[in-house]
């Protein structure tokens, strides 16, 4: 098949761009490396975390793993990237992926929307996004509360499913918030249920079930209640207009006489594919690598955006020493939206998790105690332990750049916060901790994560508003590489909505060309 459009990557933006292009009747070829681990994922027996802990003799295969960032069944998300996608940096440690579904295969399913001022800052026309958000919400299934204090900042009201049920820990925080609501809102802090790309009602037509609150969400995808890009790709593969080629490490492209040719390595062999247009969606960092290599721009610095992330380990005193009953899931339970006075209206987002299914040994490992004592401390803290991930907004700065090495493939990242940025991040954390304290949540430890840990990257390949890379006529970036800012909110839902918008522009341009 000769494709109309080649899509590089298979993550959230690639899957949605491909889907939209196929909806326009275009022939799409997706080139992807496509790592996967179906054996490990599918070997997890059906059951809740607690039940499997008590009964499954094979639990070590999926509960134990070497990775710091992903559980064992999700380690494939990062597999092969250290050798195939090299980054040379002392200051920036990003997570990259060559997985089927890209980083979306390990996505925590946070699905906030951007507000119009945030879309404008990013460089996306807000007027075009309502329709796209609605389409994505309808497609992937999002559960959210439309009636709490954070809804106007992060949630859609159209087409969302009922919000996920809260566990005892989150419910107690929300009850405390109701008591202190007025004063917290005055301080710029609102608390509500987190919008999630998780089904709370089954969708029989797509074979996806409602989440069963088994607390296994960090391990398997049983019942497919949490959206993964590979579901979209699996559906697309049934369509004759769509072709998926795995094992392809895309290296570069060239554009000549109205045709784009993409060169990829497959087991050491160089393979070329041509199409009328190219949509790059390999993730902001790898898209930059492909573009810089294709443009022979080694040594040229391009911008790099990444949300700073702080990690607060807290104890909810209302739950300390008390039993936690009822349903649980592993994703963010609550979202705190903090609008600090020093941020000029920008939001700081606090995603609030209950720590239950990530094992006691991981906690004991961090305590300055013998393991046997650390374990007992972890068991005592377990029901009230609350993990808060604070994401900070990000803007361009000359101290955050990416450049292609002279070898034509390795990327060098330079990343440093200014003194002013560090102060703003500290002030954000102080504000969030103050609000948590009002809710009866004591901060036990604050961990500043290494730049790159947030897995939110953007800004590496400047594009126009429709994703077109200015130096080319037929090459587009549908991931976040063209974004001009990075709000603190999880970006995946907006990535998908925006890639759908960009794909529609690409499709219309190609169809107009045929008509002309």
């Amino acid at each position, binding site marked *: 098949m000769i494709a109309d459009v080649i899509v590089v990557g298979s993550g959230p933006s690639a899957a949605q761009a491909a889907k939209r292009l196929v909806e326009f009747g275009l022939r799409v070829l997706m080139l992807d490396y496509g790592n996967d681990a179906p054996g490990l994922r599918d070997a997890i027996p059906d059951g809740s975390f607690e039940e499997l*802990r*008590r*009964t*499954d*003799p094979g*639990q*070590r295969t999926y*509960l*134990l793993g070497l990775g710091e960032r992903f559980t064992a069944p999700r380690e494939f998300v990062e597999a092969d990237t250290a050798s195939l996608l090299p980054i040379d940096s002392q200051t920036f440690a990003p997570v990259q992926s060559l997985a089927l579904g890209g980083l979306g295969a390990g996505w925590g399913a946070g699905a906030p929307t951007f507000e119009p001022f945030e879309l404008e800052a990013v460089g996306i026309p807000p007027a075009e996004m309502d329709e796209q958000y609605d389409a994505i919400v309808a497609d992937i299934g999002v559960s959210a509360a439309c009636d709490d204090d954070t809804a106007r900042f992060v949630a859609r009201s159209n087409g969302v499913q009922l919000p996920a049920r809260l566990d005892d820990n989150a419910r107690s925080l929300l009850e405390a918030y109701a008591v202190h609501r007025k004063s917290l809102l005055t301080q710029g802090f609102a608390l509500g249920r987190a919008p999630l790309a998780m089904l709370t009602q089954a969708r029989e037509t797509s074979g996806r079930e409602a989440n069963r609150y088994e607390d296994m969400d960090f391990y398997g995808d049983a019942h497919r209640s949490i959206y993964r890009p590979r579901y979209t790709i699996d559906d697309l593969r049934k369509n004759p207009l769509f072709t998926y080629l795995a094992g392809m490490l895309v290296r570069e492209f060239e554009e000549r006489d109205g045709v784009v040719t993409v060169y990829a390595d497959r087991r050491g062999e160089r393979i070329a594919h041509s199409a009328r247009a190219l949509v790059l969606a390999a993730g902001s960092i790898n898209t930059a690598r492909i573009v810089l290599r294709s443009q022979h721009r080694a040594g040229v610095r391009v911008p790099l955006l990444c949300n700073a992330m702080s990690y607060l380990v807290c104890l909810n*005193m209302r739950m*300390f*020493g*008390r*039993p*936690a009953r009822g349903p649980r899931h592993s994703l963010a339970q609550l979202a705190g939206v903090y609008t600090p006075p020093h941020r000029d209206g920008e939001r700081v987002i606090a995603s609030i998790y209950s720590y239950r299914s990530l*094992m*006691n*040994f991981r906690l*004991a*490992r*961090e*305590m*300055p*105690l*013998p*393991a046997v*004592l*650390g*374990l*007992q*401390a972890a*068991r*005592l*803290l*377990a*029901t009230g332990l609350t993990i808060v991930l604070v994401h900070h907004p990000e803007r361009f700065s000359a101290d955050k750049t990416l450049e292609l090495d002279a070898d034509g493939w390795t990327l060098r990242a330079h990343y440093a916060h200014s003194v002013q940025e560090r102060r703003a991040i500290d002030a954000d954390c102080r504000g969030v901790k103050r609000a948590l304290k009002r809710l009866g949540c004591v901060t036990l430890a604050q961990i500043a994560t290494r730049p790159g840990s947030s897995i939110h990257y953007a800004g590496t390949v400047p594009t126009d508003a429709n994703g077109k890379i200015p130096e080319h006529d037929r090459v587009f970036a549908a991931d976040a590489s063209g974004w001009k800012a990075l709000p603190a909110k999880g970006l995946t839902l907006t990535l998908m909505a925006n890639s759908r918008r960009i794909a529609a522009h690409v499709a219309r341009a190609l169809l107009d060309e045929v008509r002309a």
Partner: protein
Amino acid sequence: MKPDRVLARLKPSAREIERLAFNETDQARASSFEPITPGPVVASLMLAAIAVAGIVCAPVRLLLGRSRK
């Protein structure tokens, strides 16, 4: 020695954590890893006792050079 380095040296060794992880994923021992919920007052006392035991053990552990490997 700086306090944060002392605290780091007091963390359990890799071998201790490996053994703990192995035991934690043994279904026969699941109950010894479940949350302890005796109420906030007793839980506070138990936590205080753990802290005291940790402090008592600390000099010996430092002397033995037990560090996270």
